[in-house]
């Protein structure tokens, strides 16, 4: 049996048997990444929407920095958070290191530029298309950001999805600040890294397949929601952002 077939069988077996260890790892992965994604997107949507509409001196420089942050390696973010939360660091008193909050913080910082940059792109396109008419109606910068964010809410679901995808698939940051402690801070990606180093490739691949399955289900759910709402409310002049466009 090939490694892939064996992995798929192992994955199905693990899922079918509702393996408690697997469920804990998957649950923790979802918990950490969903929390990080919620925090980063809450801030990123506001920041990105404002950046998409506002015009100020130095905006280009801010956008260049933002786009650069998209490429920051997760291990670097992990290292920065580690230094912040380590006993001698400025946030050491919080006692978060090697715990759930440290992993959430690290992933939030990793995902924030993604949520901000993609939101900025969606809102800037919408502003270019419709901003003039909203200005004509009397909407200032803040109101235009809000109205366009609300109007592009289905396109922004894709931003949410991309942010979640970035969070749940990263390994470097959670490995450094979480420590991959069995039953405590082990998530899918750190478990895959561990099983690979141990040579248990079928289990590592099985975990990878489960990770893909989780992301696939979420993507499908959001795509269905978008299509349904667009059918009900009319597609009209909305700006859309596809995952393919992000790749």
């Amino acid at each position, binding site marked *: 049996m090939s490694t892939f077939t064996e992995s798929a069988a192992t994955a199905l077996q693990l899922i079918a048997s509702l393996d408690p260890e697997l469920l804990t790892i998957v649950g923790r992965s979802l918990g950490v990444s969903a929390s990080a994604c919620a925090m980063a997107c809450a801030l990123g949507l506001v920041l990105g929407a404002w950046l998409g509409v506002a015009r100020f001196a130095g905006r280009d420089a801010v956008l260049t920095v933002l786009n650069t942050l998209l490429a920051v390696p997760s291990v670097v973010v992990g290292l920065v958070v580690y230094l912040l939360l380590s006993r001698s660091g400025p946030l050491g008193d919080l006692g978060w290191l090697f715990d759930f909050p440290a992993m959430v913080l690290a992933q939030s910082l990793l995902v924030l530029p993604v949520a901000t940059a993609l939101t900025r792109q969606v809102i800037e396109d919408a502003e270019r*298309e*419709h901003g*003039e*008419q*909203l*200005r*004509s*109606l*009397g*909407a200032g910068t803040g*109101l235009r950001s809000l*109205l366009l964010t*609300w*109007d592009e*809410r289905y396109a922004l679901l894709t931003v949410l999805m991309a942010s979640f995808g970035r969070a749940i698939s990263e390994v470097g940051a959670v490995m450094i600040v979480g420590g991959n402690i069995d039953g405590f801070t082990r998530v899918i990606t750190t478990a895959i890294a561990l099983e690979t180093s141990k040579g248990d490739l079928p289990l590592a691949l099985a975990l990878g397949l489960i990770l893909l399955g989780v992301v696939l289900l979420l993507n499908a759910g959001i795509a269905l929601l978008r299509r349904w709402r667009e059918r*009900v*409310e*009319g*597609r*009209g*002049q*909305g700006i859309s952002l596809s995952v393919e466009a992000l790749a």
Partner: protein
Amino acid sequence: MSAILPPRGTLASEGGRAASLAAAAFVFRLQSAGISFGTRHALREVTLAIAPGEVVALVGANGSGKSTLLRLLHGLLQPTAGQLLVDEAARQAMLFQRPFMLRTSARNNVALALWLRGTPWADAKTLALVALQRVGLAGQAAQPARTLSGGQQQRMALARAWALRPDVLLLDEPTASLDPHAKREVEQLIAEFSVGQGRARPVTLVFASHNLGQVKRLASRVIYIEQGRVQADLPVREFFDAGRLQAVSPAAHLFVKGELV
């Protein structure tokens, strides 16, 4: 009660301010106004005045500067040269070729425009329904705006403009993308709008159009623009008098001939 919009980065001159007081009989007055985007001149040396109650048509080829002039009058663009004097007491609204509708009901779209101008939301919703009734869309008030047909969307945009009770309505090719039936409906509403029934102030209309028949039916004055310059500015009857137009602007005459062929 006029405001002077000076060229970007400069202050209005005292002379300009004095002129604004003398311009009370005008809704807009442009003095050698120009707009440049980098090295491209979208409008050059435009000098004209529009009085309350006038129905002015802007005609010209694509890219001639009609839309830029409308945007300048509406305050969406600032002059980069010359001066623009605006009667600030005159409320303005603008209708675009493809009106933007938020992803919500037609009624909410109209109410939003009122809310943005300071009307409380509950009152705005009531007034929005009245405005939609006026354009024959009361039955579609709860319908998502983006599911309306092109003609209905433009009528909804007219309702949105009408609800604001503007003294000046600027229209950028409002019927360009509509089928003949919807075109007639919207044009009829614009004509009704220009009458301004029961209003203390006459309504001023400035519209850009390629449809010379529509210009003939609606306008009292026609301004022909070519490459950002006003080439002819005539009462509608004189504009469609071939001999008179030929004498004023051969280019405008050629344009009209070409459009009518």
